[in-house]
């Protein structure tokens, strides 16, 4: 993309489209919606289990009463559905948050959490494990791959001078292309029989491998990395007016950008390691939520995280139930829904 496009910003516009609702009101509403979504989503699935039994089973695991279900059906609720819904919530929140931060840091409306080569790096790590049989756990390999790609991107961008948004994005494009080529090479060279299906599932982004471990990984990342990032809103607001203004406002531009990039990348790396690269959540949702909040990051960040959690829960519920008993990778659903939404946002923006 041309450099002038990259300096286009979504943040410098005054927040004209903002609704008059109080930010606390939105926060409470979305939090309630998130809890309701979790409760509702665990009632959907290929197995026909009554909602009352689902709740009783969950309650039993929380130490309240006995589960009315057989061991297997109890397993469906407690080992499959609940961890999957919770993983979806954590991954959705993490991706949406990362996307919003990346867009602000790079002042690029097309930025998404995978911008800096993260998803390509993670894919390379994962495919290496799936196909070459490296003796490493898949999430670890994906995480290491994501971090290696990030490091390569930042070194490449930093090597040629000051770490500017444009340079960082371009370095990310280069690293992504290389990692994607290596991934294709590994697949082409060694995929046998139907092993490519597992890879495709992973490359498109899927939550079907969720269990309590993935809940722990994604949940911890959101709590430990995501929650502190929520408080960076004031810094990001300063960035929106350009590096000079930010510096004038007392922000140490270079250090802040490096830190936030690295921290967001860690968050994204954790998400990719459990779910593959699910697209559009981190790209589209920040734009959509900005319609509510305007460009104020102090509001945008918490609300976009909640929205991301809700949207991914429902996208994944569709992915696992629409063609029951077959399953779709959730990345297909987010792309099918995300692309038209993005187009609508684009149309709305141009008519203003």
């Amino acid at each position, binding site marked *: 993309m041309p450099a002038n496009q990259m300096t286009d910003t979504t943040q410098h516009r005054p927040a004209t489209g903002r609704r008059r609702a109080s930010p606390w009101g939105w926060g409470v509403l979305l939090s309630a919606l998130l809890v309701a979504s979790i409760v509702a989503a665990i009632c959907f*699935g*290929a*197995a*026909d289990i009554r909602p009352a039994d689902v709740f009783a089973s969950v309650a039993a695991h929380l130490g309240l009463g006995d589960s009315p279900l057989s*061991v*297997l*059906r109890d*397993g*469906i609720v407690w*080992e*499959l*559905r609940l961890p999957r819904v919770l993983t979806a919530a954590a991954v959705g929140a993490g991706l949406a948050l990362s996307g919003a931060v990346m867009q602000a840091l790079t002042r690029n409306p097309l930025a998404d959490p995978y911008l800096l080569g993260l998803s390509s790096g993670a894919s390379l790590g994962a495919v290496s494990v799936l196909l070459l049989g490296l003796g490493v756990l898949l999430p670890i390999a994906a995480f290491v791959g994501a971090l290696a790609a990030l490091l390569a991107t930042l070194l490449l961008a930093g090597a040629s001078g000051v770490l500017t948004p444009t340079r960082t994005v371009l370095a990310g494009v280069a690293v992504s292309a290389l990692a994607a080529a290596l991934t294709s090479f590994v697949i082409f060279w060694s995929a*046998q*029989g*139907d*092993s490519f*299906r*597992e890879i495709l*599932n*992973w490359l498109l982004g*899927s939550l*079907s*491998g969720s*269990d309590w471990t993935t809940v722990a990984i994604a949940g911890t990342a959101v709590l430990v990395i995501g929650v502190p990032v929520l408080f960076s809103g004031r810094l990001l607001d300063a960035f929106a007016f350009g590096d000079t203004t930010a510096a004038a406002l007392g922000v140490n531009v270079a250090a802040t950008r490096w830190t936030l990039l690295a921290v967001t990348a860690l968050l994204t790396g954790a998400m990719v390691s459990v779910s593959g690269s699910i697209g559009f959540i981190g790209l589209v949702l920040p734009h959509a939520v900005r319609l509510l909040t305007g460009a104020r990051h102090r509001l945008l960040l918490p609300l976009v995280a909640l929205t991301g959690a809700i949207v991914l829960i429902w996208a994944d519920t569709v992915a*696992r139930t629409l063609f*029951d*008993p*077959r*399953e779709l*990778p959730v990345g297909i659903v987010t792309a099918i829904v995300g692309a038209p939404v993005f187009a609508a946002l684009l149309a709305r923006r141009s008519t203003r």
Partner: protein
Amino acid sequence: MSRRPHALLSLAVVAVALTGCSASTAPASSPATSSTPSVPVTIDNCGFELTVERPAERILTIKSSTTEMLLALGLGDRIIGTAFPDGPVPDQWAVEAADIPVISDFAPAQEAVLDLEPDFIYAGWESNLKSDTAGERDALASLGIGSYVSPSACKEPGYKPEKLTFDLVFDEIREAGTVFGAEDAAEELVAEQQGALEALSPSTDGLTALWYSSGTDTPYVGAGIGAPQMMLDAAGLTNVAADVNDTWASLGWESIIDANPDVIVLVDASWNTAASKIEMLTANPVTAQLDAVAERRFITVPFAAGEAGVRNVEAVASILDQLAALDAR
């Protein structure tokens, strides 16, 4: 290396020029004036009109199912090379197959194919005969190389079998006999396999089964219309994925756990062994609760036996043997 007669080639060129159609350059069927009644013969193979002037002499096979078909028909000496093997051939042909060079572990490229100078390519999948693999069938035909695809693997509507049956597999053996000039051997093989199949006594215990090929997060399983379904039917087992109208499908674990199959048929391939799947099923807290996993009621089938071909009857027999062994424990 045999070539088509020039007259026929130029006839084909004229026909193409006249009709302006490049879909098929195979010469039209000529009247059976030959002394041998079986050739020349024209076959509609996956929508490609294949005319066999004389039985092929230098055959390249792609995928195990085709190699094994020729070996079973006693035509192993005409195979000059093979590609994309799915695993070792059964013991009875091991010595004969050991001499066949494997030109590629995957679908070979055109140049590697032409370098062998085959006069015929016998492919297991349609995708083996595309420009990025062994070559388009028309292009091969213009070089005098005939091609034939296992009919059960045809993808075009009207050619794709609605549901694979042993009758279709036997028809496939007979058609291969016609194409490769081994009709008697084919009839014998069909009679033998039919006899073996009828001699089997399917399980009458009303057991359900899952045919599990690969995939840990989203298992890839044999569904309602392919070779796995056909073999499970013949063994008297009810496929838990029978309702899915496809040969194979990616199922969610939830529906499998809900179905709780009595036995699990594990596909054993070098890249995805039955042992690795047992390990995964046992380690996962939910799947470990499945009756078949808890009681270790596993049945193993080699990957190559999972495609339509000469090993299906034997695979059903093996499934029934393993089932009996499980019951005897």
